[in-house]
């Protein structure tokens, strides 16, 4: 009898688990395994001399080795997005180039941009992203953080 009870509990867990995985929804992706190539992005004037109407764009690049844990959606079809929320830093634009799996693109704060669409065939997606950063020099207060994250939509 005890053995039967345990089996029922496990079966119940199985049902709940399948329901959670099967729902088409948006999930935030764990990117805690990612590593920057350097601790900071050093920004320089895009134009060393400003124009008459004013030009305060700072720009810089930073390489990031992204490691996204997509194991929870293994063997499913999904669309992976880079999400750039509104920033405390005066970010104007973030662009990126990838080495294969991700689509290149760009975003302004508040945007969500597709970087991958297709089957999730491995538990981890690793990608080297070369970030291009543009910020407003007139509003940049020393060192300020830029944050972004990834979300996945699964069918």
């Amino acid at each position, binding site marked *: 009898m005890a053995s039967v009870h345990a089996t029922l509990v496990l079966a119940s*867990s199985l049902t709940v688990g399948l329901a959670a995985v099967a729902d088409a929804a948006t999930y935030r992706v764990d990117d805690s395994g990612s590593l920057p190539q350097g601790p900071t992005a050093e*920004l320089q004037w895009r134009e060393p001399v400003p124009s008459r109407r004013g030009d305060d764009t700072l720009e810089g690049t930073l390489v990031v080795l992204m490691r996204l844990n997509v194991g929870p959606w293994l063997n499913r079809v999904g669309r992976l997005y880079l999400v750039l929320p509104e920033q405390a830093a005066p970010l104007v634009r973030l662009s990126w180039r990838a080495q294969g799996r991700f689509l290149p693109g760009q975003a302004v704060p508040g945007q969500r941009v597709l970087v991958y669409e297709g089957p999730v065939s491995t538990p981890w997606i690793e990608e080297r992203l070369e970030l291009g950063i543009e910020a407003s020099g007139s509003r940049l207060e020393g060192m300020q*953080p830029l944050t972004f994250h990834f979300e996945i939509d699964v069918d």
Partner: protein
Amino acid sequence: MKASSQTDSRILLGTIAVLLACASGAGAYTVNLTPKNPRTIYLQVGVGTFTGGNYQQGGSPATNPLVNLVSVTVPAAQVGNGTAQTMTTNSTASQSLYDSFAFCNLPNQLYVGGFYRSTNGSAGSATATLVANVPASLVSAGGRTIPFSQISWTSSGNGDAGGQPFPGGTFVAGGTQTIGTINRNEWAESCHTFSYSNAAVAPAGTYTGRVTYTLSAP
């Protein structure tokens, strides 16, 4: 068959555990942004120098030690009659070094321009201020004087409408006065047309004096 069921269940429980771990571990990726050597200031009164052409052509600002002259010769019959005398300059700077736009008209106008590069965090100053250090008088070889306050200027620029960054004024004899400001991350320029008020009779002679312009951003 029962053994098989138990194995499947264990796998599923493992999956649930992974899902929970992901939910707690998902965070935003953070990059620190920092400005690097962003502060620059440039002033040109009269002739200036950009090496390699104007900025649009790839040139860069450089030092030019030349001091330009603004002068007028008052006809003897008009000395002290109160009719202002337009002054001319030996400056050859008629074009903006930003893009070679023909901004000033020679020889009546003296180019005054520059730029100010700064982030908000550099020093907190939103503008760079141009001041002139003015002697009390122009002095002749014989020690006669004419107050610098008898020299004024108007400000304009070809193609400009509205106010000038360095507006017209009159020299304050023996003082330091503000000529204008440059907003952060802007190129600003004006052309100054000087005139001598000719309001007092001065003995014949050549009267000279030097006004020094300084652009600063604290």
